[in-house]
């Protein structure tokens, strides 16, 4: 659950909660004797025993082939099968040494794989709980017209944190329920910018749906980064 600063169409903002709606099936796996099994990660090989390292060590692929016929240089008997816990991810250079200072570049590619742009990597920043709220744009889209225009890959449910925000969110839900529509919500002064929940996360377009049942409400923030359409055939790409 995370704090979410939301402004309504009148520009009044309030911090509410955005909660995950993911439903997970919790499963236990039992061994044939009825005892519970658990997953472990084990080591099969290391960078010091992979193809580039062994080729470097022996001087040529031919020499390595000879070595492979004679023994098992790719296996480290001391490490093979070791259970891995508390691991970390690091960058290594071509020689398998840890690199501490790296520079990252984003390469934007067209659908056919050709390079479009190259620029320094820029991490997205979270914008759901800043001083500048996520705004309702006022742009309504009928549910019956929007369900097949976008791929809603994620959702959050917006919930109140106290009596005042209950009234605030209930009013929004009621308006959207009556209109049978989704409203475009987003960052920026017009409420049409992308929404990013955590640093480095994928930005999404937001569509708010409201449902009302008596004095209870359900405000669903649908998140999409894809339109439901077919790729343009390569010949038509300019």
């Amino acid at each position, binding site marked *: 659950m995370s704090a979410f600063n939301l402004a309504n169409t009148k520009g009044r903002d309030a911090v509410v909660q955005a909660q995950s709606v993911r439903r997970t099936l*919790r499963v236990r796996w039992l061994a044939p004797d009825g005892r519970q099994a658990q997953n472990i990660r084990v080591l099969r090989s290391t960078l010091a025993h992979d193809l580039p390292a062994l080729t470097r060590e022996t001087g040529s692929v031919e020499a390595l082939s000879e070595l492979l016929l004679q023994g098992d240089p790719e296996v480290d008997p001391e490490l093979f099968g070791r259970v891995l816990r508390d691991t970390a991810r690091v960058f290594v250079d071509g020689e398998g040494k840890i690199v501490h200072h790296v520079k990252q570049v984003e390469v934007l590619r067209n659908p056919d794989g050709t390079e479009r742009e190259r620029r320094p990597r820029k991490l997205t920043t979270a914008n759901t709980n800043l001083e500048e709220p996520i705004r309702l744009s006022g742009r309504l889209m009928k549910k019956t017209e929007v369900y097949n*225009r976008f791929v809603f890959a994620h959702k959050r449910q917006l919930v109140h944190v106290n009596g005042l925000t209950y009234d605030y969110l209930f009013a929004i839900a009621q308006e959207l329920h009556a209109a049978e529509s989704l409203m475009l919500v987003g960052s920026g002064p017009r409420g049409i910018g992308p929404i990013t929940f955590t640093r480095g996360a994928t930005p999404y377009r937001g569509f708010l749906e409201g449902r009302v049942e008596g004095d209870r409400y359900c405000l669903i923030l649908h998140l999409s980064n894809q339109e439901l359409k077919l790729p343009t055939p390569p010949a038509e790409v300019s």
Partner: protein
Amino acid sequence: MARPLVFEFHGSEIPCAFQKVERADVYGYVEIETFDDQERPCTLATVAQDGKTLAGPGDTALGCVTPDGTWVERASLQPVTLDGERLEPAPSSFSAPIALGAPVTVEQLLDHTIRAVYHLAGLEATAPSEAPPELGAGGANEAPPELGAGGAALLQELLSGTIYSFPFSYRGGINPDTAFLIAGDGHPFMLVGSPTRLEFVGLPQTAPAVDEDEPATEEDDLDFSMF
């Protein structure tokens, strides 16, 4: 080409080839390249708990063990719920025709998060608008004979806004996804996703502290003598 899905619709079986539509296919994609100080490319590796053993891609594997560390084969494991109830795996959706029952509502579709999009290319072969003029005497509304009229009827329903839903599992498994057949941008699609746990919320209902039927007494008057 992948095996087609077979839909059972109004008494006819419709084999339907499909292909995945990724976001990268529509808009392109971003690759991250990493370099060291001397502009040499770097790759990601895993460093073990000893701080010096480095494992590259494919150098680690997953396994299953019992609490005492005995190795067990994954195929021999039985899935159960947290209460110990056995879970039976669902068959692959390719193993039998998929019966399309009653249509579902837009809200039911919106209750799901969508993780995969497939274009039902096989079904589109029956599209009246796509049919070539030399199709035959039946005119543009007649489906190619190998697909049957059922395919054209199903496509027509989807284009008119009908949504069909069914459990979907590509390879079979204990937790099948939900698939939706819809038409978008003039083409038939299958969206595969999972249900969510949306719930209506209200202010917590609490019991009244005083009986509202009881008339107010002088005890309700503010008593300052207690100070």
